[in-house]
């Protein structure tokens, strides 16, 4: 496995590119922005507020390499408060959204970064990643993907969940 690492400073946006040309970008969303965004998507205020407090980032990946890449969010790891665990995928939010209108649930689902996606050369995708941590929590993140048949991992340390 190839490993790349980066020290992220506070909650600033970070953009990186692997040796083969896969670009990864992560950018924090303030809780107030998140709450307003999901209210506008039709989620009830209590749910939009709960999501806004759960450490929300914008994530973008672009495959500028010469081969397809396979990205599976379930293989990403988050380390915070002395524990390491996988990043939660779309299904993990079903219970929280149980009471939301069907259209708003669908809208929420499609705003999230895809759980499992293959990007062809030149393709890119974006979405929201929710790390389910309290505001202000410091954490590190390891993202990974398969690139040209090989696992590539990218570690970002000293990230911090956005606060208002």
């Amino acid at each position: 496995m190839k490993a790349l690492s980066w020290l992220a400073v506070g909650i600033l946006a970070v953009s990186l590119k692997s040796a083969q040309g896969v670009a990864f970008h992560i950018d924090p969303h303030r809780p107030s922005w998140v709450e307003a965004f999901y209210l506008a998507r039709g989620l009830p205020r209590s749910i939009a507020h709960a999501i806004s407090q759960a450490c929300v980032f914008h994530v973008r990946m672009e495959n500028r390499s010469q081969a397809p890449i396979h990205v599976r969010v379930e293989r990403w790891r988050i380390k915070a408060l002395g524990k390491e665990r996988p990043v939660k995928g779309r299904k993990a939010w079903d219970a929280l959204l149980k009471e939301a209108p069907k259209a708003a649930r669908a809208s929420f689902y499609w705003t999230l970064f895809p759980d499992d996606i293959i990007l062809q050369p030149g393709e890119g995708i974006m979405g929201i990643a929710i790390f389910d941590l309290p505001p202000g929590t410091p954490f590190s993140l390891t993202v990974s993907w398969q690139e040209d048949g090989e696992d590539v991992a990218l570690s970002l340390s000293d990230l911090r969940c956005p606060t208002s």
Partner: protein
Amino acid sequence: MRSFLIGLLLVVILFSLVLAMPSLTEVPGHPKAPDFALPDLDGKVHRLSDYRGKVVVINFWATWCPPCRKEMPSLERAWQVLRKEGIMLFAIDVAEDENAVFAFVAEHDLSFPVLLDEEGGVIGRWSAKGLPTTYVVDPEGRIVYKATGPREWDDASILEQIIALKRAP
């Protein structure tokens, strides 16, 4: 000499942009496109199977999605070419309120049909994983191409890929 170097640099930049332009990805096995019946902004219902015999481009998008917004102008320019070729194009908005979609369409002066998948039931039956995702369906109703993420839809090579399906055996 200086203008020659600037010209050379421009050629290199343009060449690299052309090389970087992702084309459409062929979908293995050309699976049958899932049918749908969705309303446009005037309330007229469009059923995919009614367009059998035509090439149909289907773009799944949402107004909040930055890359979706980015590709809309090129999709409109592509539509001006494709409609003359007898090719259909639908932009299917995913899980949004009609008013938000209407405002966006009016602001960007989009003339292709925009359909509303208000509860996300249609996109769930396709293989899309994120937005935007676009499919090209051949006259036999099979998915031939897929594009994940945005494209410059009026790029000549992409238009050629789509138009060529009219002639495909």
